[in-house]
């Protein structure tokens, strides 16, 4: 989250200030990418580029605060992911194995970065393996950092339904992890 300076940064980006846009992009893109790796893993990178193109084009017409901005971006991300999934369904190339999901290593500490990347890949793959409606709300709650009401608006469900789906998702995750370690 950017915090109190958000309004100025958004205004700067609208005015064409690349520095301001870069602040927004750095802040939100990692979450966008991870969300997409859960809901549309095969096309996450391309879809993220589509999302930002749409966001840039709509920047001037956006009105709202930082929470609203994030909600908007993830609304766009969800629509583009649905488009991508439709296209993928026409040419069935399904799930990418977790260890093939790209996650870039850090330049300064390759070993730590490798561990970080591995943990992230596994975490995203575990969430992606949940039933799709559960995976989506867990990803939006945890990765996008949105609350149940915001997620409800994005996915077109009541916030109570979002909570139930997310809680079921957590329990399922716990069961899966217990089986994995308990064998």
């Amino acid at each position: 989250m950017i915090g109190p300076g958000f309004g100025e940064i958004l205004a700067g980006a609208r005015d064409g200030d690349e520095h301001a846009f870069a602040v927004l992009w750095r802040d939100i893109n990692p979450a966008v990418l991870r969300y997409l790796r859960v809901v549309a893993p095969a096309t996450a990178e391309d879809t993220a580029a589509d999302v930002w193109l749409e966001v840039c084009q709509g920047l001037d017409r956006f009105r709202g605060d930082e929470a609203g901005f994030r909600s908007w971006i993830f609304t766009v991300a969800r629509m583009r992911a649905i488009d991508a999934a439709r296209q993928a369904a026409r040419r069935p190339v399904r799930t990418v194995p977790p260890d093939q999901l790209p996650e870039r290593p850090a330049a300064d500490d390759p070993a730590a970065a490798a561990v970080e990347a591995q943990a992230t890949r596994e975490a995203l793959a575990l969430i992606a393996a949940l039933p799709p409606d559960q995976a989506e709300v867990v990803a939006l709650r945890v990765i996008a950092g949105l609350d149940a009401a915001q997620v409800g608006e994005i996915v077109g469900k009541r916030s109570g339904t979002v909570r139930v789906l997310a809680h079921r998702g957590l329990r399922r995750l716990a069961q899966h992890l217990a089986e994995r370690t308990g064998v």
Partner: protein
Amino acid sequence: MRRHPRIPVPPLDPVMAERLLDGTVHEDDVPPEYRDVLRVLASAAASPSTVPPDEAAALAMFRSTRRPVDSRRRTSVLSKLLGAKAVAAIVLGTAAVGTAAAAATGTLPDAAQAKAHNIVAAVPDVDPAGHGAAEAHASQAGGASDHKTLPGVAGLCQAYGSGSGGDNGKRLDSTAFGRLADAAGGKDKIAAYCKTVTASGSAATADRNAVAGACRSWQAADKAARTPAAAVLDRLTKAAGGADAIPSFCAALVGERKGGGGDAGRPSATPSHPAPSPRDGEPTARPTGPPTDDHGQGSPSHPAPPTPRD
């Protein structure tokens, strides 16, 4: 994932579930069956420690969707990005004046002068291939400039300001005064320049960067003859000490904006990209008003045009 897990896991108390999802719970408070879940969620939520390599592509795309802006913006994307240019400009300016002060007035001790030189040497190279590292250095240099180089210039500014009324600068000899005027970009700009120097000395680097960002917004709006955002105006009026002082304040802090725009057609550092074709999709901000043209949940839309990547 199996449909009928053999190891039963107790359901989660809804409050605890929400805290897990919010990431606001300590491991010790989580039921043992859910501690691995906490770790998975933390790994999924953690921000990557690296600057993504496709940032340049994202910026190129951003440019392609904006109207042309002045050449400073387009030619030094990365330095803008890192704030290194602003830092370097201030550091170089202050160091030069500091050195001038030492030479002209003998007010700077050798140690301070040596520090000023060190800091000039420490200004990071802006290296597109390693901007993560450059960024770290830039922030260090920013911090250093706040605490180490400012005394020299702050002293000059103080000397300049200590003359009352029309006596400004009386206590500086002509050489030092001239160098201060050079650094400020003109005698009439010294007051504004000194304001930015002392402001950047007292404020945190982040705050100065925010002010610099506000200046850029203001300059862009001014150039386009638009009214800048209220928040921008507010901040700058305060920082500059009055709305009238904003132009010279910003010019001193982030540089003079290009007049005339004679090089508006010059290609930018990255290959130019065709403007994207119009999309059917208006921005969809259901929760936030316009962008309002909702796609509907799951309504079809056309595939995106190719996105510039380089």
